[in-house]
């Protein structure tokens, strides 16, 4: 399989605080990779670095055969990387439809349009004129995912998309995620819910204190290995 994204010895942090210590990571075309790990392990920081919200302080970041480490953040969408940010971060003064259209601000050619997003999440079509932040948590998550899809990304980064949602809604969200994967894009999931991550991903990578502590296909990892990699005990 063709390599879509690759990082080598990637480091990043906030000011004097270093959060990532040399991450080697890759995603192949069409693959779904889950990143698990305890709070503060650097999962969100890693996704933010991939999405250009945070500048890497060292190492390499290659996407589709280009070195994008020094690209300005606003060009990542153009390159084909979209992030569903933690906490959804919808635009409160914009309607549902306007939020989705913002996702298409720099649009690549591809299957995702307003119509196909509404087909995926019919409830959003009904509420298209409502302010996005008036919707329920699950519906807001759908807006955030739809907004990311509207740019027709090659790589979809999802940060804690199940956080704070009812189990039924989480199942629904993950069901649509597998539908989305069917349209041929790669996914990186950051997930606290290990069970959910194991089900949805082809490969699991565990972060611990800014380093990769374990990596493998879900079926090949034992409980002990995971808990050792997760907690470091």
């Amino acid at each position, binding site marked *: 399989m063709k390599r879509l994204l690759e990082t080598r010895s990637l480091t990043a942090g906030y000011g004097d605080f270093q959060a990532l210590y040399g991450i080697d990571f890759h995603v192949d075309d069409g693959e779904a990779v889950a990143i698990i790990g305890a709070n503060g392990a650097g999962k969100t920081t890693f996704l933010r670095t991939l999405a*250009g*919200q945070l500048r890497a302080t060292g190492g390499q970041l290659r996407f589709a055969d280009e070195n994008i480490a020094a690209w300005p*953040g*606003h060009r*990542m*969408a153009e390159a084909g990387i979209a992030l569903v940010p933690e906490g959804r971060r919808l*635009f409160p*003064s914009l309607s549902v439809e306007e939020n989705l259209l913002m996702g298409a*601000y720099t649009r690549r050619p591809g299957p995702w349009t307003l119509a196909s997003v509404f087909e995926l999440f019919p409830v959003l079509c009904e509420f298209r004129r409502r302010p996005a932040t008036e919707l329920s948590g699950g519906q807001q998550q759908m807006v955030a995912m739809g907004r990311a899809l509207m740019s027709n990304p090659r790589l979809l980064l999802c940060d804690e998309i199940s956080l704070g949602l009812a189990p039924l809604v989480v199942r629904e969200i993950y069901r649509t995620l597998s539908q989305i994967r069917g349209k041929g894009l790669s996914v990186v999931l950051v997930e606290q819910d290990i069970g959910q991550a194991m089900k949805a991903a082809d490969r699991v990578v565990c972060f611990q204190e800014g380093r990769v502590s374990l990596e493998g296909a879900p079926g090949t990892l034992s409980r002990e290995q995971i808990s050792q990699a997760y907690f470091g005990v």
Partner: protein
Amino acid sequence: MAEWINTLLQGVLLGGLYALFAAGLSLSFGVMRMINIAHGDMIVFAGYAAIFTAEHLGLPPALTLLLVAPALAVLGYLAQRLVFNRTLGDDVLRPLLLTFGLSIVIQNALQEMFSADVRGLDIGPLATANFQLGGEVAIGVLPLLVMATAVATLAALQWLFRQTRAGRAFRATSDDAGTAQLMGVNRQHVYALAMAIASAVVAVAGVFLVMRTTISPSDGPARLLYSFEAVIIGGLGSLWGTLLGGTILGVAQAVGAKLNPGWGVLSGHLAFLLVLMFRPQGLMPKTRDR
């Protein structure tokens, strides 16, 4: 009676000019969360630019706008992109200090170039032209023209913000610049674009200002104050609110001046204070229109 009706009409129409003053300020605050202390001086600068082009190129007063508005838009874009953007961040004091300094620079530069004398733009018979509505009630043609321009400008801004891709990017960036960047929005460019539009509106305000009255280089801060008051009375972030705020300010000033020639500016400030006391959020807050 007719005298009072005339006073009220003058006040309402003066509100059109104040709305034009305020719209640019409201826009730069709405998108960049930046308070531009040099806003009033930019209006006065635009006025002098109109006087300069009218005198040196022999243009009719209204046509100076065709040069001054694009010129100010370009200057606004460059100032934001090259200078103001560097000051935006968590510290709200930095843009305040910078634009405060810019205000002093503009005032002194204008004084150097045009001297401290008051200047105006000779608009010929338009200055006194009016429609007689009967019973001694009359409406000035120029004030009416200013009001119509203000309404048209606000409607155009409203359309831009609500209906266009750029307008969506303005509102999204104002909500959450970091997330807008994820969508591919270059915030440096978006901010500069917003300042370019604000500066073009400033140019309209400045040209009408020198068509209506005379100015001197140190008049900027007073224009800034009127702009602020109109924005606050109308409600922060509301475009049509600036028209309401400007109108209330204009009427208060006209009525005050009618009672006593020295009370005009004072009663405008009093109206502003009354609104602050009883409705500090302004009269039309949070219309979701920035």
